[in-house]
């Protein structure tokens, strides 16, 4: 019987063979490190007199809690815990010989944006990071896993980790979007999560396949794979094609023998036609609408043209889901039956490892160009990396956003998780291009609606959600 792409990558990375019901020891090709989930791991190494086995396969940056305001100024409070974490990472990287893109580096940015941008992410490789959105790198045909701090320590010490083999899950995306500027990769992945649920992918590695995936650019594919974790999956991946190989060619850290690697990837990195998946789901995208989340997990999502569902409609008879939806509506201060387009917003956040790449900013700028944001809205753009920021500025995108009264910030995770000063105040409602609408995620009491960059941009202009299919975005 044939094998899936995931199984091929898995098998080529086994160090100690799986025994029945036991995890296997898997080799890790790339380890990305950031300031929030690594301090305790380095501390563990020190306590046990261990070193980093392969500093040459390890790269660090600071993204989660860095300020996104003027970097020429010092962090306001040098004794603050954010500042301590940043200094701790600097010291750990120095002590253990790890390459660090620090706050002043032109390569600094969200780990999942800089990995591909620098050519560190490679097809067929295994990649880990102490961050659940590591699944992003799966867009390049890598097996990319988010891990906890104990595993960060384990990988630092041994370049391997113990893992039970997940099950392969095929998600086919079929058809063509009528308006690909208005209906985006974000709308595809939100539609998938809406259908399979936030636990729908638990215990699996999703392979996204079909015409609807092949049509996407690399940056759009990253948006899809990024949110695999929001469906509960261990990872999500897409078989590499010429778009993949082109994207990684001639980057700063692209391997010297890249073309010979590409030759082998072309032959090896695909699912065999007779391979079997343990689970399957198909989404037809010909007629899907822009999506807006209304609740407190990404599965609680509807079309922009819908009205807010009642807990009964949402739960389909499941009592637990119904209570979850009641709680969510109470937290979000929304009434069932309200049209999504009538929901007024206070804040707009364009950023995060889901949607802060150059293409996202280009698409959003088309909505903004020559307009001003609504007088009651405060809006910000936080590019995913310093490199994205620079490229956008070379194209003049910063001016378009600034002229429209957006704030144009430095790179980082920012208001996606609000570990730095960029947070919502209680009761503020935000159209956000990020990945999680959990209670308090963007600030205690803040209300998050997940949308695409064009939907967020349009909401900023109008002060409420609008169906971007009605706009000219070409």
């Amino acid at each position, binding site marked *: 019987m044939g094998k899936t792409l995931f199984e091929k990558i898995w098998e080529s990375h086994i160090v100690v063979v799986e025994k029945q019901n036991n995890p296997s020891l898997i080799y890790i090709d790339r380890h990305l490190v950031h300031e929030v989930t690594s301090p305790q791991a380095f501390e563990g190494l020190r306590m046990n007199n261990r070193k980093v086995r392969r500093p040459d396969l390890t*790269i660090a940056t600071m993204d989660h809690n860095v300020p996104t305001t003027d970097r020429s100024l010092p962090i306001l409070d040098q004794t603050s815990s954010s500042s*301590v974490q940043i200094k701790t990472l600097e010291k750990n990287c120095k002590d253990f010989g790890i390459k660090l893109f620090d706050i002043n580096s032109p390569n600094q940015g969200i780990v999942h944006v800089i990995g591909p941008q620098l050519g560190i992410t490679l097809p067929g490789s295994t990649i880990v990071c102490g961050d659940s959105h590591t699944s992003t790198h799966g867009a390049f045909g890598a097996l990319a896993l988010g891990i*906890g701090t104990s595993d960060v320590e384990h990988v630092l*010490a041994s370049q391997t980790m*113990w893992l039970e083999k997940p099950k392969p899950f095929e998600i086919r995306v079929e058809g063509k979007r009528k308006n690909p500027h208005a209906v985006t990769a974000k709308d595809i992945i939100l539609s998938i999560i809406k259908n399979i649920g936030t636990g729908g992918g*638990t215990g699996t590695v999703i392979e996204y396949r079909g015409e609807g995936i092949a049509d996407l650019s690399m940056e759009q594919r990253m948006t899809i794979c990024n949110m695999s974790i929001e469906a509960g999956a261990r990872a999500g991946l897409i078989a590499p094609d010429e778009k993949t190989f082109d994207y990684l060619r001639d980057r700063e850290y692209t391997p010297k023998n890249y073309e010979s690697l590409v030759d082998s990837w072309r032959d090896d990195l695909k699912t065999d036609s007779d391979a079997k998946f343990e689970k399957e789901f198909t989404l037809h995208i010909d007629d899907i609408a822009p999506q807006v989340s209304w609740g407190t997990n990404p599965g609680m999502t509807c079309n922009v043209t819908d009205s807010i569902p009642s807990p009964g409609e949402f739960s389909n008879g499941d009592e637990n889901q119904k209570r979850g939806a009641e709680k969510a509506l109470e937290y979000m201060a929304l009434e069932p039956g309200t049209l999504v387009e009538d929901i007024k917003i206070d804040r707009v956040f364009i950023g995060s490892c889901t949607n802060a790449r150059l293409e996202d900013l280009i698409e959003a700028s088309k909505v903004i160009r020559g307009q001003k944001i609504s007088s009651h809205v405060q809006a910000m753009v936080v590019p995913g990396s310093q490199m994205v920021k620079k490229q956008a500025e070379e194209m003049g995108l910063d001016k378009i956003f600034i002229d429209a009264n957006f704030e144009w910030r430095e790179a980082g995770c920012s208001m996606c998780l609000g570990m730095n000063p960029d947070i919502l105040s209680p009761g503020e409602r935000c159209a956000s291009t990020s990945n999680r609408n959990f209670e308090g995620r963007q600030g205690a009491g803040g209300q998050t609606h997940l949308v695409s960059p064009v939907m967020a941009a349009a909401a900023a202009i109008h002060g409420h959600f609008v169906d971007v299919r009605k706009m000219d975005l070409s």
Partner: protein
Amino acid sequence: MDSFKKITSIVTPLDKVNVDTDQIVPKQFLKLVQKSGFGKFLFFNWRYDEQENEKSDFVLNDTKYKNSQILVAGDNFGCGSSREHAVWALLDYGFAVIIAPSFADIFFSNCFKNGVLPIALEQKIVEKLLQETGAIEVDLENQIIKTPSGDISFEIDSYQKKVLLEGLDDISITFQYEDKILDFEKQSKIPSVL
């Protein structure tokens, strides 16, 4: 890591589905550089109001559960972020066992690395446990939960069971395979980053 002993305690019922790690420990508390001291932040936004007074309607603030070591919750417990701080907070607060119909993968794996036992049981059984007011005993060795209304058996991966019972450090286990790691590295085609 300490070895896992039999636990006897009343259960703390947290009757919610999709409890995410942002709720277990909100992000403003992820800035410590050590593993201890996260218990006071556990379920912070559910436990405290804006003035940081205890909310009387939240289960952890009910004094009868003060010394409980077993948390029972709804489906998909621990979803969201990979932050191990969630497990550190549960452990530091005093929970050694989490029971739910299902767990998110990364959270589930993080539990074992810290000596916390996550047990997945059928929805119906979990619903009964949510109502259980007497003490129950969790016996990992025999994979049995003893309750006033009868015994419940549970499944666990044999490797994870051994790790918990013996309090093993999995990095030391891995170092026993040094030869195999070296062999793998010799044939690996993926080049260094630098």
